């Protein structure tokens, strides 16, 4: 065999394999692990595709990383949950406008026997007890929306994490699912969004200990990446996705998503 000619033919064949399957309108949405791993997108996107014919490709990351991907121009829309970071994203000129879509809530889960006696409705008190007992606590540590919320709660509880943390505080630098897996393995406490928790299968001894505190409210927002910054952004299709999410049809589809009869996300987009 002629090595060079063979190489060339192989390259040509490989290039064919690399061609995209079919050309159709699609947008890339950078979103969070909670919306993907809870199964919401699996429920939402087929309905959107039926309504508009637009295919949505979701890249699921932590909120910080999702915003970073969008900042680089690698997504058309971001759909995340960290209001402060989202507003900064828009203010910095990367996004057109932030639109609230829905909310769910955070819960603190931990071992059923609750060695730190953290169970109750008061998030901050629970964190103080966990810190006082030096009970194992798993932190996302990945600049996600949930991580940002967790750090905010420690601060509000009047605890200086840098000063009090030791072996009991375990920063794993991964998504919600891995954090729950780690907690389940070590019988540790962890802050999680309720949706990922409900969809999570490997619970072990864990159960919900703290819920229902107004502080645990978790708002999701959607932002179109600014085409002035990144001209290749699919503005029209991206805007249609945002419009559909906050339309009566989109909001109802969000409300209809349930696991074991329990609603995971509560639509609260702007009316009209």
């Amino acid at each position, binding site marked *: *065999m*002629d*090595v*060079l000619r*063979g*190489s*060339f033919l*192989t*390259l040509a*064949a*490989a290039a064919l*394999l*690399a*061609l*995209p399957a079919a050309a159709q309108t699609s947008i*890339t949405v950078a979103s969070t*692990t909670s919306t993907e*791993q809870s199964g919401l*997108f*699996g429920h939402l996107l087929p309905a959107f595709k039926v309504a508009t014919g637009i295919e949505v*490709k*979701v*890249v*699921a990351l932590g909120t910080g990383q999702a915003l970073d991907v969008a900042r*680089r*121009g*690698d997504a058309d829309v971001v759909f995340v949950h960290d209001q402060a970071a989202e507003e900064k994203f828009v203010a910095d000129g990367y996004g057109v406008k932030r639109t609230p879509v829905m909310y769910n809530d955070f819960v603190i889960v931990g071992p059923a026997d609750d060695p730190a006696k953290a169970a109750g409705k008061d998030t901050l008190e629970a964190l103080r007890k966990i810190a006082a007992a030096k009970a194992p606590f798993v932190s996302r540590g990945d600049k996600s929306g949930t991580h940002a919320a967790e750090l905010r709660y420690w601060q509000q509880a009047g605890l200086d994490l840098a000063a009090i943390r030791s072996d009991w505080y375990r920063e794993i630098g*991964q*998504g*919600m*699912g*891995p954090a*729950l*897996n780690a907690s*389940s393995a070590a019988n540790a406490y962890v802050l999680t969004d309720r949706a990922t928790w409900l*969809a*999570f*299968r*490997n*619970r072990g001894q864990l159960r919900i200990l703290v819920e229902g505190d107004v502080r645990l409210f978790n708002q999701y927002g959607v932002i179109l990446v600014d085409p002035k910054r*990144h001209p*290749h952004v699919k503005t029209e299709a991206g805007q249609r996705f945002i419009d559909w999410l906050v339309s009566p049809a989109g909001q109802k589809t969000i409300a209809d998503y349930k696991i074991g009869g329990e609603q995971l996300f509560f639509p609260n987009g702007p009316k009209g």
Partner: protein
Amino acid sequence: MLETFAEAARLLLVLDPAVAGIATMSLRVSVAASAIGCAIGIPVGALVAIARFPGRAVVVVVLNALMGLPAVVVGLVVYLALSRSGPLGHLGLLFTPGAMIVAQTVLVTPLVAALTRQIVEDADGELGEQLRAMGLSTLQRARTLVFDVRFSLAVAVLAAFGRAIAEVGAVLVVGGNIAGHTRTMTTAISLETQKGDLPLALALGFVLLAIVIVVNAAAAALRSHAARRYG
């Protein structure tokens, strides 16, 4: 643990049709990357094996070291290159199967080149003298030796395919694990593990293992058939 295995075995029988699509994506990306990797790596490895040039020893060490290239680092570098803000951003390849092929090609090409270099160099030890006596150029000798060791090079091809189909770090970063688009067997296993659905993750692992075994068995059969016929 046993329960997880039993559940995994049960899931294998009722696997979602989506799994077939994911397996196809894995095969498509890894086969393309291995093919490109071999198309580049085999000629490069063969030339390094027999050509004499200053700094050759360094090139050999670097090639061998690159066999251990961390997949996630390759993923990150290719991500930065293909990102809209990167030098190749205008191609719009990020988060597509094409991006995954590029990343895996970077990953497996040095592996093929390093293994080819070793195999061809050994053959050159036996036949080199003769070929040089025939007055063949370096390129001609490389070509002859590659042809001579073609059945042994199958191991380089299979190593490239094995590395590509088993890695998760690079495809996850540059492909984005997008459902129905860039989800491969390894990124799907990683996702199911994250969701805590360990039985499903394990079932997918069995499927991946089965694919790898079938591909290797097919390669072995092809090789022995070819060796009988043309050896």
